[in-house]
């Protein structure tokens, strides 16, 4: 230990860089395996875009767990609801969606995404009050209640919109790819990457630069102490839950546009991916969730290219490998 003068700043906590290097190493390792550099670049861009979308959906879940020890198995419902709500805006304004002007397209997509986020967030409020509040502190009942909520939400969507798959075409100006040399990168993926990065930076800024973020981080680390200092952590938690739900709704819209279709079963498929991401990242850690999302997307894209049959199984293998290395996920932030 070195002596510290009173005026010196506190020593910075040690940065844990190994997890950050992991996706980089994985990407570099894949260059010789894939062979052609142009398809490697395309695949890497695809992984980053997919990873950002998964991150947007998973970020809320990991914070909800970290802050309040709540396991929400119904998180996928917000994703599906977000996607369905977006069709409410996109279908009537199909003409603007088809128009070949970026601004006109964005003028429809923006409100659609905002409406989805608002509805998912509001639904988050209802779910938190009705399903989660009565069973605080009881994991078993939380899992059962939120699973029940997921069934009800999915079936209600089927009842309202019908069981068929709803097509959701990409706006015209977002179709096609940017072509640089012989590398093709889909335009929509660039947009997804930009939105994902913006969300990540926004979350990091809120968490690290505001009082609210300070309280959230403190709550993740020690809930009782924050409560003892006089802050109403339940209200803070409700805010985080609603934000997480809204982000899941946004992710749902982006995913539906990526797949160009909407169906309530998308929540099942994504729930599994999101769980893997949250486990890999370490429950409660935003940074870990970000890295985890990119890793999962990389495994899905590279794996899908190299061994197509093993797409989902490879995610399990990734999870097993990471948990063997760090049994509590990449970054263990909670004491639980």
């Amino acid at each position: 230990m070195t002596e510290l003068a009173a005026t010196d700043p506190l020593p910075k906590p040690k940065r844990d860089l190994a997890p950050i290097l992991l996706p980089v190493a994985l990407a570099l390792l894949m260059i010789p395996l894939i062979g052609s550099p142009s398809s490697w670049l395309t695949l890497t861009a695809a992984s980053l875009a997919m990873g950002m979308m998964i991150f947007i959906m998973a970020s809320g879940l990991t914070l909800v767990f970290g802050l309040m020890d709540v396991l929400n198995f119904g998180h996928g419902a917000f994703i599906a609801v977000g996607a369905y709500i977006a069709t409410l805006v996109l279908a009537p304004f199909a003409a603007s969606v088809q128009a070949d002007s970026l601004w006109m397209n964005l003028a429809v997509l923006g409100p659609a995404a905002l409406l989805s986020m608002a509805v998912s967030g509001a639904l988050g409020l209802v779910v938190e009050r009705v399903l989660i509040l009565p069973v605080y502190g009881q994991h078993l009942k939380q899992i059962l209640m939120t699973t029940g909520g997921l069934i009800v939400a999915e079936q209600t969507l089927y009842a309202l919109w019908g069981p068929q798959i709803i097509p959701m075409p990409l706006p015209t100006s977002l179709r096609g790819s940017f072509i640089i040399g012989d590398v093709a990168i889909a335009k929509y993926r660039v947009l997804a990457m930009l939105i994902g990065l913006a969300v990540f930076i926004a979350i990091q800024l809120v968490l690290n630069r505001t009082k609210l973020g300070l309280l959230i981080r403190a709550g993740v680390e020690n809930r009782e102490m924050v409560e003892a200092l006089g802050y109403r952590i339940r209200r803070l938690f409700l805010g985080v839950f609603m934000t997480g739900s809204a982000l899941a709704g946004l992710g749902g819209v982006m995913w539906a546009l990526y797949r160009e279709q909407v169906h309530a079963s998308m929540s099942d498929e994504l729930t599994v991916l999101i769980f893997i991401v949250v486990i890999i990242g370490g429950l409660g850690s935003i940074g870990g969730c970000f890295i985890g999302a990119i890793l999962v997307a990389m495994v899905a894209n590279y794996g899908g290219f190299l061994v197509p049959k093993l797409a989902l199984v490879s995610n399990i293998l990734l999870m097993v490998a990471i948990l063997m290395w760090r049994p509590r996920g990449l970054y263990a932030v909670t004491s639980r």
Partner: protein
Amino acid sequence: MMILSGDPPRSRVLTLVLILIILALAATPFLFPGAKALNVAAKICVFAALVASYDLLLGYTGSVSFAHTMFYGIGSYAIAIALYGMGPNWAAVATGIVTGLPLAALLALAIGLFSLRVAAIFFAMITLAVASAFQVLASQLSWLTGGEDGRSFQLPELLRPGTILISKNLFGFEINGRILTYYLVFAVSALMILALLRVVNSPFGRVLQAIRENRFRAEALGFRTVFHLTYANCIAALVAASAGILNALWLRYAGPDTSLSFSIMLDILLMVVIGGMGTIYGAIIGATIFILAQNYLQALMGAASTAAGEAGLPLLPGLLHPDRWLLWLGLLFIASVYFFPTGVVGRLRNPAGDKSGGRSH
């Protein structure tokens, strides 16, 4: 009392209901003619055993597993693939059993050791991920499993409906291979439930309950909790795989919808919660209520839906459509977790107080 391992139903009404259910199931081939009644009864038997094995995990150890249908599916597929590949003979049945059961137990061991090594809270999520991966695998390995179509197969001669064991003029009832199969299903299910009762009332079962109530304290008392939990996992997987074998034998078919789908997992969860967690008897009650409702209420919903449609009501026809059956089950599920956490059995045993059972954490 020996046969119940000293754990009687402990409620007069419950005893009466259980006796009624078991007598009805035993006499179904004679009391209720027709294929549908027999199918429903066989399904109740299979699910009672399956749900009881899930109760060992959920009710007694307090861990939520979403991989239970995977073990059920392994049993179903093992017997189906063996009978499909080797033809309808008893050697194939034996092959299916000796490959299916150890496979299920080994997989349960692997999942248990792995997910219990890491944070216990991950268990539910990891089982969900593994189960969904297995489902994808089963539908992709279509050369083995028949993909989405599944595998239909023939049963050995003795168990076929055409085989008449005792002709009609002897008792007035015809005993054929189908009825023999039914009694096979009934007897094996009953044996498995009794065996599970034995397990939960053994010292081992007591340790499981101790782990459920307070894992840390159980460990402090010197019990190796990881060993106990993994062992319970393996027992539950074995029973689930056996139930899967029975189900495949009864249906003469194994496919993703009847043995692997996520909706079966939800059905099992519902049955455990409705019947009562941590009671084993709840499995019989839950399975009976649920399957009867599933088979006979859906028709009622269809009628209500068309009636509402003809009356010109908005939204209701869609909400009451028989395919939306799960919506109402989901609501029922939430309500029963919230209002009756101890289920039917808990209510019957302790009508006044509602001490929450099966609580974890």
